């Protein structure tokens, strides 16, 4: 019977795929990565994944961890979707026996992973990019960290930037998701604190063909500038084009999702001199420069996309904690993170894994000068944040200055 | 039993039924004849509620049933068959029949779930009744056959069987003899007469004049959507208007 055959074949394939992956496993230390390689954030996941691979390379080149074992990274594709992400995370924890995970990118995946897999599975989860304020207040038994600051920090800087650029009236268009909402709220609060007036705050749905009605509404009270909270691939570029084409706005302020060279293509002269914000490295140390250098050695030119450096840092911090804990058990790693990191510890750069191991062996605390700047977690596992201000010059994106919050 | 008053039905300007009126007496067999396109099947659909009247009235058992939904008219005791037999193809002959009786408590899903014994005993009665009907039609050997596998004539009988299962007062039969071999036709004719003996009222559309002449008490002739003449079979046979309508010639 044909159907029986197929059925059996499929079962066998499933089973094989389960077991084969086990046969090749050697004595390694595993860290999981939950990156979206398909779905809405696929264009980010590809590069954040590179960030984690770079950390793995440095660590393994310098003798691995836990007494010479290799670091192995196991990635599962979240498909930018909570159902698949949660399933993937559980796979990492149960099948691969992993208790330390870097990911996920979007908060809509990170939070369910934290609640249904990481926390009950006693697994440390460090997100390199989930900026939702919800993560701050999550009841996570201390298992959930992030190497980016909460959205509210960028909002404060963006609000200040808008005021500093001599705008009295500001219109905001934001992507209707967790990220957009959080930023929008923070910008309004800060801009009004600085005496400005927000004339419109409009949420937009991603991937529409036309945003003219949103733009018309935003421009209705003659604001000085448009603060646009969007991603490049969800409609942000369309909004910029249509705003310019129809003359709704000629002055823009952008946020991190638009810190990408695509936004200026073909409209360089109109966007020349515009400013934007993006979470960035804490100043001090030369982590970011070093990271760029190492990244370009390994993968070629570093794309101007966010969260590559924070993904590197999340991986490195987990390795530090595993080394400190001397174990790959979740609770031990969780406790070790705050034991090993200290603002006033001994400086370790991103290419100094050997030095880090020695310091840990000597019982010293470490000030990790990470790829995104020094990584220090507050008591709820949020990273202290630095927000960079960037500018468009000659059609390119140039970093201007950094604000620390 | 059934009264139609000045019924009108238009299809985009064309009057398929045009001011047509007639009555059917209780416990009779009435034939509805007329040339093709006279509006007979349309009239059936108006009576059974499958089509909505544009004008006029339909009374069934003294009750005005204009534009009732088909299932409501059916519940008042009117059953019908279709010109081209409609069967529930992928269901058994028995199921085709057991579907029909109204007021089955198992038709309420709640009862099906939680009042199994009551539903089961009703189903047994229903099944027995379906077998009786099959016996009456001499189809009992086909009870577990899928309806799709029946011959054309057997499908006609099955239609009749479904009409019987409803225990109707009035049965509308649309060309019960069409495409049926002479042996089966006799059987169908016998069955129709037996139904009358049981007190049913029958209105049938038929082109087979022998059948009409043999079994009908009265015959109504329709032409161009209108009621043309009406009378006993013998009267109709000799009526020049009828001949004219069928031959389509203007002799006057």
């Amino acid at each position, binding site marked *: 019977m044909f159907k029986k055959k197929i059925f059996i074949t499929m079962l066998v394939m499933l089973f094989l795929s389960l077991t084969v992956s086990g046969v090749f496993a050697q004595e390694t230390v595993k860290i999981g990565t939950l990156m979206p390689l398909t779905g809405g954030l696929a264009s980010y996941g590809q590069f954040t994944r590179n960030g984690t691979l770079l950390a793995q390379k440095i660590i393994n080149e310098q003798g691995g961890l836990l007494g010479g074992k290799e670091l192995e990274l196991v990635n599962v594709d979240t498909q930018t979707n909570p159902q698949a992400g949660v399933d993937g995370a559980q796979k990492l924890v149960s099948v691969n026996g992993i208790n330390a995970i870097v990911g996920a990118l979007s908060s*809509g995946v990170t939070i369910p992973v934290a609640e249904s897999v990481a926390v009950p599975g006693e697994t440390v989860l460090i997100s390199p990019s989930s900026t939702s304020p919800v993560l701050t207040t999550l009841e996570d038994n201390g298992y959930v960290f992030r190497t980016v600051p909460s959205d509210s920090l960028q909002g404060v800087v963006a609000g200040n930037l808008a005021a500093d650029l001599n705008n009295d009236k500001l219109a905001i268009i934001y992507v209707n998701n967790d990220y957009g909402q959080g930023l929008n709220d923070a910008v309004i609060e800060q801009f009004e604190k600085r005496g400005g007036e927000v004339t419109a705050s409009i949420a937009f749905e991603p991937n529409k063909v036309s945003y003219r009605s949103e733009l018309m509404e935003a421009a209705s009270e003659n604001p000085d500038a448009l603060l646009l909270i969007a991603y490049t691939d969800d409609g942000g570029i369309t909004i910029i084009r249509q705003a310019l084409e129809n003359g709704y706005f000629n002055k823009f302020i952008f946020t991190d999702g638009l810190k990408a060279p695509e936004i200026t293509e073909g409209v360089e002269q109109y966007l020349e001199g515009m400013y934007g914000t993006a979470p960035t490295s804490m100043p001090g140390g030369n982590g970011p420069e070093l990271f760029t250098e190492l990244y370009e050695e390994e993968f070629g030119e570093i794309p101007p996309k966010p969260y590559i450096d924070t993904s590197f840092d999340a991986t490195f911090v987990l390795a530090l904690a595993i080394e400190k804990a001397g174990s790959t058990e979740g609770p031990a790693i969780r406790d070790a993170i705050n034991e090993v990191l200290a603002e006033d510890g001994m400086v370790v750069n991103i290419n100094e894994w050997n030095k880090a191991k020695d310091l840990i062996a000597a019982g010293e605390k470490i000030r990790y000068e990470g790829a995104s700047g020094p990584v220090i977690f507050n008591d709820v596992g949020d990273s202290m944040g630095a927000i960079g201000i960037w500018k468009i010059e000659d059609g390119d994106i140039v970093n201007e200055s950094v604000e620390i919050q | 039993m059934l009264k139609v008053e000045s019924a009108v039905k238009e299809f985009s300007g064309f009057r398929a039924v045009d001011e047509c009126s007639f009555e059917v007496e209780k416990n009779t067999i009435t034939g509805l004849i007329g040339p093709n396109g006279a509006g007979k099947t349309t009239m059936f659909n108006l009576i059974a509620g499958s089509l909505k009247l544009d004008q006029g009235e339909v009374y069934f058992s003294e009750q005005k049933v204009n534009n009732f939904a*088909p299932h409501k008219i059916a519940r008042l005791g009117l059953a019908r068959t279709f010109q081209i037999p409609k069967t529930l193809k*992928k269901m058994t002959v028995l199921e085709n029949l057991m*579907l*029909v009786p109204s007021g089955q408590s198992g038709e309420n899903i709640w009862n099906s779930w939680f009042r199994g014994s009551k539903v089961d005993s009703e189903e047994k009665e229903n099944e027995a009744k379906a077998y009786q009907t099959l016996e009456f039609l001499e189809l009992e050997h086909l009870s577990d056959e899928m309806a799709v596998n029946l011959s054309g004539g057997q499908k006609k009988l099955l239609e009749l069987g479904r009409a019987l299962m409803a225990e109707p007062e009035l049965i509308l039969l649309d060309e019960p003899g069409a495409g049926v071999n002479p042996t089966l036709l006799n059987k169908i004719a016998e069955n129709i007469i037996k139904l009358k003996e049981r007190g049913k009222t029958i209105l049938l559309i038929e082109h087979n004049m022998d059948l009409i002449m043999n079994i009908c008490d009265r015959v109504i002739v329709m032409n161009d959507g209108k009621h043309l003449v009406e009378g006993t079979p013998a009267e109709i046979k000799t009526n020049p208007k009828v001949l004219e309508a069928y031959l389509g010639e203007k002799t006057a």
Partner: protein
Amino acid sequence: MTLAGIFSYLVFFLIFVGIYAIMTLALNIQRGFAGLFNIGIAGFWAVGAYTSAIMTKAPSPDHLGGFGMPFVIGLLAAGIVASILALVVGIPTIRLREDYLGIATIGIAEIIRLVIKNEAWLSNGVRGISAIPKPLAGVFGSNYNLFFLLIVIIVIAIFYYLSEKGINSPWGRVLRAIREDEEVVKAAGKNVVRYRMEAFILGAFMMGVGGALYAHFTSFISPEAFRPMQATFLVWIMLIIGGSANNFGSIIGAFLTWGIWTGTEFLTGMLPAAYTTQAAAVRVILIGIFLEVILLSRPQGLFGEKKYSSKSTANSK
């Protein structure tokens, strides 16, 4: 990789399969038995998930409620609210041709998603609802998922039983007859609209309960979870793979489809790390190939349509 680890993933995997199986059983009642074209499953899923979350959570300033009700009440409420939604959608559309119902259900699912996104007082908007309680959390320790799987299996068993019993009853006979020929059923005095509506509501109830189980299992829901791809079309694929109008096929379809969806990850995971990005794309292609193979070799689904008959008929010979 330990045996215990594989077992614990298997449990987790089966919970997801189970939730999808509930959705597929529900769709089978609507589509397989009653021929109703519901392509807004995501909407009923979301309504069930949010209803139960709001009913069972501790009071929160972020959204409506919560009302701190027990888990079982949450599940029932989820089913009831989803049923009411089905009634409201069904009243104007269910008597129309089936494609209109399809359009209406797409529309309603999108409206629901937008309401959830934008009506923050109700649903905390795009930030979602977190900390949805798990029933008897803490009692079972590290075996908790096994307990949750048991709950899911019980729900499936109940729905499977009710669905089988329903379709084999006179009620199911009318539904099957409607799918064969509506006119005949009307001529037999049955209210066709009523039966369709009942099947639609029954399916919606099950979808609501499935949504609630999803919410309690992941403890967090946001509009992101109710995208058409994972919440509607995947369920359709499961139904088609398993075989429409076959309850058992629906469950197997859910198992196989979710197995392929996630199992391909293991296959592509064996490729070297440098090919991760390509592997993800290969995985999507593999999923397509698997499904294609099944559909080409078994166009009617793995199990095809089951022969259902009302009970006493089956016993009579």
